[in-house]
């Protein structure tokens, strides 16, 4: 959270304009007054936050015309990105001088304000800012809800060493209302954990572990539940069973958004024919459509990126399909690794020094980081001018900072890459062949590389020709840790790498700064212990130079193979054309010579034979 007093002032100014004349306005004026005095701390999230806009940019008209917003005031943290924008808009409409000079107002005091200052639950925050999580429009909401459930299922199966089997069903209740149900054969969830996992945001197992997984933060599925609750009033329905000898439990869960706590409506044992696994059912407002960025595409691509999964898909409008797994081998279990010194930030380092179990600085560095040997730890300490034997807890802030600055100066081995589990060239190829009717397929898995201390692997697959449309932009399928990315294509490093590659070298057409054109599907996968997404909705990969470089190399490798395939094909076609050309016209040379020189039939045949041979022989040169 930035704490910029000037920005704070601006924001408050605008809030004041939102509820002119009313008590709200008066209160806000106090906020403004206070803002400057609070040592640059952003003042309390002002009343404007209480509007029913849910963080979506509010239209000016609404802002002016609505009654003063209900002041659900909270503490500083809940400032959203959307607000400064709307603030500016409003400010233009209502000059601030007007409310400031309004007479006969009571002034707020620190005490009256203190009564309204309270914590904002993370659930509340995301309820209003649901676009951050991918619930900004109905089509996307449907996709995101399914995606969150599928991510969890696949992660759970893999962690438990179970070959996943997924049933994804979407039922259309009305045009804008759907019931989705995702069933897996995972390990199930113990009864006590079910409410928290599905009914509490930021509750999960993956956040604190540096390991390649689909989920990261523990927000997704509970956010989906919250969205369905918000749009239909229906609770999340969970069925889960941990083994054949255990009973299956059925839960109906709502989220108490004010407290970010689950509210259990139903909790009972049920009969279930699934031996172990979990089913998530929800009802939500949404839109089902076909084409690019559709749920259909997402499920298909998920199947592609997870060749070890069996997938059964039942969309609302026909076209059900079932995909047997392409391999019965589970992906190698991703190893959790300790952070690499090159990726650490100052704040994190400070915390590590405070919380480490190491008794000496040297020992702490060795035990808490990967690739730090005794020698490296000593080197870092020396470069920072600190005794390697000093107690880490006793380090002062300037010393930790010196340590932080010393790290880049020391040569440290790259982090271990065994923790990354790519899909693999063969399985990408096989998946593409199954999903796309094309002529030419290739794939490439790059060797592991490192950005900001995080190891990652880039994989590229490519399908060309066949029934793919020849005149359109290529279909770019982006994946991060085996999860298809459907939105924000233009913001993604993968897209940047594709448009930044010169496909004309590989016999494709390409407009300047655009995706290439041609009958092509590009499959690009980025696997990492920590995929740097540009937002919480996990739709686009951030463009770190190291990542861009690897992406480009992978694309070029596949591009080169495509290029040589196309050139080879063209050569064959040319040769074939020439061949038929030779065979078509050489007899006429024979006829002409026969006519002019009165050759015999035998002599004529000889001319044709020798000449055909001569031309075909030289053609290959």
């Amino acid at each position, binding site marked *: 959270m930035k704490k910029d007093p000037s920005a704070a002032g601006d924001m408050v100014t605008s809030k004041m304009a939102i509820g002119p004349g009313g008590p709200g306005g008066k209160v806000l004026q106090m906020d403004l007054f206070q803002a400057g005095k609070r040592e640059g701390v952003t003042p309390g999230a002002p009343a404007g936050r209480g509007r029913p806009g849910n963080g979506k940019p509010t239209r000016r008209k609404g802002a002016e015309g609505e009654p003063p917003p209900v002041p659900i005031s909270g503490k500083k943290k809940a400032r959203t990105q959307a607000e400064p924008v709307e603030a500016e808009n409003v400010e233009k409409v209502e000059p601030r001088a007007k409310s400031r000079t309004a007479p006969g107002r009571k002034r707020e005091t620190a005490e009256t304000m203190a009564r309204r200052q309270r914590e904002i639950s993370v659930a509340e925050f995301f309820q209003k800012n649901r676009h951050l999580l991918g619930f900004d429009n109905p089509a996307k909401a449907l996709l995101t809800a399914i995606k969150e459930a599928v991510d969890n299922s696949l992660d759970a199966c893999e962690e438990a060493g179970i070959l996943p089997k997924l049933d994804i069903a979407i039922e259309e209740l009305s045009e804008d209302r759907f019931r989705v149900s995702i069933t897996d054969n995972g390990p199930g969830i113990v009864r006590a954990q079910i409410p928290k996992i599905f009914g509490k945001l930021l509750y999960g197992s993956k956040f604190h572990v540096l390991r390649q997984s689909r989920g990261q933060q523990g927000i997704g599925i509970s956010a989906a539940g919250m969205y369905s609750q918000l749009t239909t009033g229906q609770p999340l329905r969970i069925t889960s069973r941990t083994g054949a000898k255990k009973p299956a439990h059925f839960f109906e869960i709502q989220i108490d958004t004010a407290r970010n706590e689950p509210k259990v409506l139903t909790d009972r044992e049920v009969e279930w024919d699934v031996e172990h696994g979990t089913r998530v059912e929800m009802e939500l407002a949404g839109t089902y459509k076909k084409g690019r960025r559709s749920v259909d595409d997402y499920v298909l691509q998920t199947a592609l990126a997870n060749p070890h999964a069996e997938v059964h898909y039942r969309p609302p409008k026909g076209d059900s399909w079932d995909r047997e797994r392409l391999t019965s081998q589970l992906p190698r279990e991703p190893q959790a690794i300790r952070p690499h010194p090159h990726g650490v930030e100052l704040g994190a380092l400070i915390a590590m020094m405070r919380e480490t179990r190491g008794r000496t600085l040297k020992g702490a560095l060795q035990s808490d980081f990967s690739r730090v040997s005794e020698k490296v730890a000593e080197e870092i300490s020396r470069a920072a001018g600190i005794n390697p034997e000093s107690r880490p807890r006793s380090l002062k802030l300037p010393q930790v900072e010196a340590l932080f600055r010393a790290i880049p100066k020391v040569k440290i081995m790259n982090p271990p890459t065994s923790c990354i589990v790519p899909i693999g060239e063969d399985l990408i190829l096989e998946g593409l062949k199954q999903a796309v009717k094309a002529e030419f397929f290739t794939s490439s898995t790059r060797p592991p590389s490192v950005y900001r201390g995080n190891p990652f692997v880039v994989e590229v697959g490519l399908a060309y020709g066949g029934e793919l449309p020849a005149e359109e932009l290529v279909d770019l399928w982006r994946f991060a840790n085996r999860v298809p990315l459907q939105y924000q294509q233009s913001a993604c490093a993968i897209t940047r790498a594709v448009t930044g590659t010169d496909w004309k070298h590989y016999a494709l057409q390409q407009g300047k700064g655009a995706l290439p054109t041609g009958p092509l599907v590009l499959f690009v996968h980025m696997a990492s212990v920590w995929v740097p997404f540009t937002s919480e909705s996990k739709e686009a990969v951030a463009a770190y130079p190291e990542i861009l470089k690897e992406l480009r190399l992978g694309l070029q490798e596949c591009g080169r193979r495509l290029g040589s395939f196309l050139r080879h094909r063209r050569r064959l076609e040319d040769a074939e054309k*020439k061949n038929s050309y*030779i065979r078509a016209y050489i007899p*006429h040379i024979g006829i002409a010579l026969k006519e002019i*020189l009165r050759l015999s039939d035998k002599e004529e045949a000889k*001319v044709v034979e020798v000449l055909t041979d001569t*031309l075909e022989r030289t053609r290959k040169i």
Partner: protein
Amino acid sequence: MAAETVRRIEKTASDIHKTILKQDKPSMRFPMRSLSNVKYDPKRGHFEMRGKRKVRTLTVSTVKTFAQTLRMMALSKELVKNDDIATKREAYYVSKNWDEARFLEQPESDAVMDDVEAFFEINREQLGFVPEEKGGEISGKLIIVDRDSETGKPLRIDCTRFGSGAYSIPISVEHLKFQTEAKFILVIETAGMFQRLVKHKYWKTANCILVSMGGVPTRACRRFIRRLADAQKIPVYVFVDGDPYGISNIYRTLKVGSGNAAHLNEYFCVPQARYLGITPKDIVDYKLPTHPLKDVDIKRARDAVKNDPFFQHHKEWVAAVEQLLKMGVRAEQQALAKWGLNYVIDRYLPEKLAHPERFLP
């Protein structure tokens, strides 16, 4: 002549045949046919090739044209041997029997025919190919000696005895002989002006031979005038419209030949031709009614001054063309009718013919 043509075709074919049997790729050398490959030789009086040549070697990419060229030669040999002829259009239709080697459009067969002609550096009429266009008309004091196509006996044609009609120049003129007392040949651009002069027997008044070109003169027409002028040693005066087309297309082609068939200009040009009118000066002197120059006229005139070796060689012509460009107008032969329908006969031509030394080169 015919035997020579057949011999040369057979020699070419035989060379190609031997090369093929040696497992080599045969090739043919053709002169380039374009204006950039001509120069003007004032002593010889016509456009000549600069000698640039293109070699067509038999490869995969040339095999079609190579085959077509050879078949065209074979057709030519048949025509010459049987003393037959084929028009360009007929040759095109003959090719329709050549399966894959047939021509799809006539311009393709014309181009191959032009190549064959340029290859042997002879006239396509000698190869048995004839143009369809009309060759020009003759009226006046001239007796042409032709021969009867059945009996081979000499046939005397008196060009004063066509009444209101005229003698039509045949496609092949090499065998014709001439008898005449006329003092000069007057070559006229338009059939209308020719009609007027014939109607009033101007050839009798001026003691001349009248030739109507009907636009750009055909090869036969040029060859006829050339042979007649050479044989009788009489001057040739050209009377055309006073516009860039009359000057640079009609007159220039008659006098020095064309850029496209430069290898033949030696035969198909009339170096002794002189330009009687209509000159830019005539437009002023005779106060002729005019039309403004069109864009295409201006372009043609500029092109003549800038790129045409013939005009560039004659300062008088550069001056005249530039005067025309400056005036921005053109005048037709018939514009003289402004002063009376027979003004051309009574005043213009006598006045001009009194001073042939003033004619443009």
